Each structure stands twice: as C-alpha cells, then as structure tokens.
C-alpha cells in the first residue's frame, strides 16, 4: 500500500505532523519568551513587570514542546495523519473559505457569501442553477433582514451594496 505515491492509503504521517506541531509550539513559546524579555520580565519598582507572567508561560510552552517533540520522534512512522484524498477534501473547503475571508474586507460580507454558497452547491453538490441561486441569495438576504433590520447590527458592506443603496 505504501508504495503508491498518491491515492488512497497514503498521506503525511502522524509522526511528521506531531513533530511539526511540536516545533511550531516551541517557536511560539520562544516568541513569547522574547516578547516578555523586551518589556521586562523581572521585578520592577512597583512589583512584577509586564513580561513577568508571560515569560514563565513561554518557558513552560517551550519546555513541554520539547517533551512533545521527543515523544513525536518516537512515534510509529507508518501511522497516517490523514490520507491525501481526505486532505484534498479539507482543501476543497479551506481554499474557498480563505478566498472568502480575504474578500470580506473589500466586498463586504454579502456578495462573498453568495459566491461561497453558490460555489459549494454547484461544485461539491451538483445542484441545478435554480436551487443554487435561491439558496445562495436567500441565506444572505435572511441575515440582512434579521440582523440589520431586526437587531440593528450592521454587517460589513462593500461597493455593490453602496450601488444598490442598502
């Protein structure tokens, strides 16, 4: 099974994922330690300085990350983190969501939401255009009415909404 480079049954190993996460948390811990060091982690004139608490928090993160790193290195290299096919599924959600999130600051929340729902339904669900468009416009419209009209909570809007005068 493990001879196939792609397809079912192969994927990144749990071991490398564990090691990767341990290294990331180690780096995070060191950043926290460094950040605390900048603002001072000692005992100032009026008690503990701003970096006092996070300094030790950072040290603990770094210390435990090392333990996790060692136990990750000892992990069975054959156990899978996930299969490539499954990872592909995850990316099918993650990539459109990332684009969606990136569009929100520029286009507001409504238009990207319409696009996101339409994309999912058409691409992953194979719905016909009528159903797709009904849901894609219906859901944001529902949120517009409930949030902006009933609860008076403004959501981010972009140039399209401005054009429509909403």
């Amino acid at each position, binding site marked *: 099974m493990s001879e196939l480079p792609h397809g079912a049954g192969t994927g990144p190993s749990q071991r490398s994922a564990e090691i990767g996460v341990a290294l990331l948390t180690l780096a995070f811990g060191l950043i926290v330690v460094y950040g605390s060091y900048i*603002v001072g982690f000692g005992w100032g004139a009026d008690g503990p300085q701003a970096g006092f608490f996070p300094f030790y928090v950072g040290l603990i993160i770094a210390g435990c990350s090392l333990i996790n790193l060692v136990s990750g290195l000892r992990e069975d290299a054959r156990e899978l983190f996930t299969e490539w096919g499954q990872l592909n599924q995850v990316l099918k959600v993650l990539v459109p*969501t990332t684009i969606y999130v990136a569009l929100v600051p520029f286009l507001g929340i409504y238009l990207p939401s319409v696009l996101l729902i339409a994309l999912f339904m058409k691409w992953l669900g194979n719905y016909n255009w009528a159903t797709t468009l009904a849901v894609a416009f219906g859901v944001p419209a529902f949120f517009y009415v409930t949030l902006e009209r009933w609860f008076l*909570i403004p959501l981010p809007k972009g140039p399209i909404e401005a054009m429509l005068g909403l």
Partner: protein
Amino acid sequence: MLENFTYLYHGFGIAADPFNILLMAVGILLGVIIGVLPGLGGANGVAILLPLTFSMSPTSAIILLTCIYWGALFGGAITSVLFNIPGEPWSVATTFDGHPMARSGRAGEALTAAFTSSFVGAFVAIVMITMIAPLVAQFALRFGPAEKFAVYFLAFASFVGMSKEAPSKTIVSMMIGFALAAVGLDMVTGQLRLTFGFEELLNGFDFLIAVIGLFGIGEILLTMEEGLEFRGKAAKIDAKVVWHTWKTLPKYWMTSIRSCIIGCWMGITPAGATPASFMAYGIAKRVSKNGKNFGNGEIEGVIAPETAAHAAGTSAMLPMLALGVPGSPTAAVLLGGLLIWGLQPGPMLFVEQAEFVWGLIASMYLGNIVGLILVLTTVPLFASILRIPFSIIAPVILVICAIGAYTVNNNVFDVVMMLVFGVIGYVMKKTNYPLAPLVLAIVLGDAAEEAFRQSLLASGGAISVFWSNPLVSSIMGLGLVAGLWPLISNLFSRLRTPQPA
C-alpha cells in the same frame, strides 16, 4: 439557607415571565439545531449569538444563552442515536448503544431514554447548584488574591490530571491560551506587550473569535475530511413509546444515581462532560449484569452517558457563578458574556446581583422542563434538518461563523483571525491537543495573572505566599493531587497488585 429559598421563589417569578418563557423555547430550539449541525456546538453557538443579546436585559440574555446550551446538550443525542454521528463530543458514548437501538427499530425508545436521562442529570445538577452554590460563594468571599490564584491553579491542574491526552500536550495547549490572553495592553503597568508592533494586536485576542474558529471552522474541516454522509434512521416518537420507555426507566435508578454523581463531580472540576460520559458508560458496563450486551443496543448504555453528560454540563455552571471559574468551554463563553454585561462572576455576584443569580437558577429548572417537552415533540423536525446535504450546510455554517466573528467587535480583521484559529483547531484536534484548556485559559488568563501578581506583590515576590495559610495550602494541595492524579493512581494500583517483572 432558608433565605435562599425565598430568593429562589423570587427567581421563579422572574423566570416565569411570559417573555422569558418564550426566550427559553427559542433558546432550546436554536440550541438543538446548533447541537444537531456539525460545526456548530454549544460553545461557538453561544459565542456567535452573544452579540445579539447585548440589547437585552442581562437576565433575559442569560436565559436565552443558557437555554441554547441546554438545547445543544439535548441535540447531541439526536445525531448520535439516529445517525451514529456524535453532534457533540460528549455524545460520543451515546452512539455506542443508542445507534444499535435505532438500527433495530427502537430509535424512539433510545431517544426517549436519552432525553429523559439528560433531564434527570440536569435536574439533579441544578438541585445541587441551588444547595451548594450559595455556600461556596459565601465561603469564597473570604478569598484573597492568593486563594483566587489557587482556585485557578486547581481548575487548570485538574485539566492536566483528568485529560486523556498526554499531560505535556494539555499544558502546551493551556499555556498557549494564557500567552494569547497576555497579548496587548497589560492592565497593571499599562504597557504594551507581545504585540511586536502589530496594531491589530493592541486589544489582544478575543476569546469569542478563538471559540468560533477553533470549534466552528475546525469542526467543519474535520467533518469534510471524514467525507460525511448523513444516512440516518427515521425516528417516530409518540406518547405510547414515551410512556412505555418511562415505565422501564426506574429499573435503572442505580445507574442514574451513579452517573449523576460522576457528572456533577466532573462538571465542577473542569474536566467536563465528555470524560464524564465515557466514565459513566465504562462503569455502567462493568457493573451492570447486562454488561456483556453493551454495544448491541442496551438501554442502560444510553442512560449512563447521557445522564452524566448533562449533569456535568449543568454543574459546570456552579464554579462559573460562585467562583468565576467556568467548568466547560460553553460556561466560559457565558462567563465572557457576563463580563460584557458588566456583571463580575464570582462570590460577589450572589451578594450584589442576587436577583440575577436566582433568576438564572430558576430558569435552569424551567428551561430543562421546557426543553424536555420540546425535544420529545419535535424530534422528526430536527432529524429532517440533518437530511439537508452537507454541501449546503457547510457554506451556510461558514457564513454564520464569519458573521458571528465580525459582530463580536465589528471588525473584519477578526474574520481573518477566525480562519487562522480554525486551521489551528483542525491541526490540534488531529494531533490530540485538547482545545478546552486553551479556551478556558484565554478567558481566565487576565484574571489568573492578576491574582498571581497581586499575591506576589503582597508577599514581596515570595512564592511561599501560596502556602501561607491552611486555606490556600489545602486548595493548592488539592490542585497538585488533581494535576498529578495519573501518577498517583498508577502508584496505588502498583502497590495493590505487585506486578510480575
């Protein structure tokens, strides 16, 4: 003691207001939907809806939000029994026997048993809260900063001891939470820290964003990976099935009592509903005379985990109200809500906001009764929600999460943060880092740090302040025992049964 009943009586007066009863029904229904849908759970459901309640009175708002929580607890059982998909982590144990029951055509029975035991568990926990919370709060009034820190220490240490994940992973996850909480303006010195010049980080990390990302987006990614297809069993609940099942339930009173005790204990110490449900299931399996049949659709295997999960989920409110230390991520979000409404949870809440506290406690009684009736009557409706394909549900939930993240502070940067937390949550789940300690640490980070620094300030920097009087020493001692519990229990079992080398 007696005056508490007077307070409770007044509380019922507040909670039984028609508007509040309506809010309960709305909250329960929303909660069940949230519990049924993948990617929306109690914690992030409450987090998303929190901004909508800012315009309500705190009492009505908390009634709505706690009822969403009860609803989510109920809802987890529906997906477990009908679809073999635990909607919430604490209903995993319910799938073991609940789904086999549904497969053999006893879905209605399984659901009735699950809902009724949930109700029993919650009810016992609420009675316990009514009795004990005021005493705990009164006792805690004497707490100074050192004792406060000791309580936080106990809470977090029991996470380390109770978690089934490696202790070093639990600690890393928890400390990352503390570090994230520390980012931004330091309240004591007024200094900026850990922002590294990024203006976006001035206000630190909002735990609501973290909750929505970690639990919402992370969960969607996980569900997608499993290539989820809902293929469920139909459920029909009518009065006859309910009555039949109710008649058999008293037989299992021992299982119920045991699960209630496990649940209440695990809920007060923030181990949470998930381990409580597993523990209750495990013990029931070992003790029951039908133990061998567990896993093939034994009704006792539904009663045990459901009772414990609900007892734990409900009793998580006790430390949240009385000490300001939430016992579960959802309780942590509720605590965050209290802070936003300007209510400081903890012992003083019982003194200064007695009306609010007792209104809330009374609403727990009513909310669970309303909940039981609602879920028993509306199951087919919720089962049909699950038949909506994931390719529609997923983007809609993503949009809801994004809107929820935005409305917390009306800030688009938060939507980006949410996605980052979502990816972190996915990777952490896959590598067995527990998420609950991280969330609790973000919520409690500032308070814990303040207590820590104040105690050190009073003692001139001597760590011995945490062992300076019997009270603080015993809490710290309990914390150490809780944190090192795996080692201690290991030692005990080795002493008792000398193992051959």
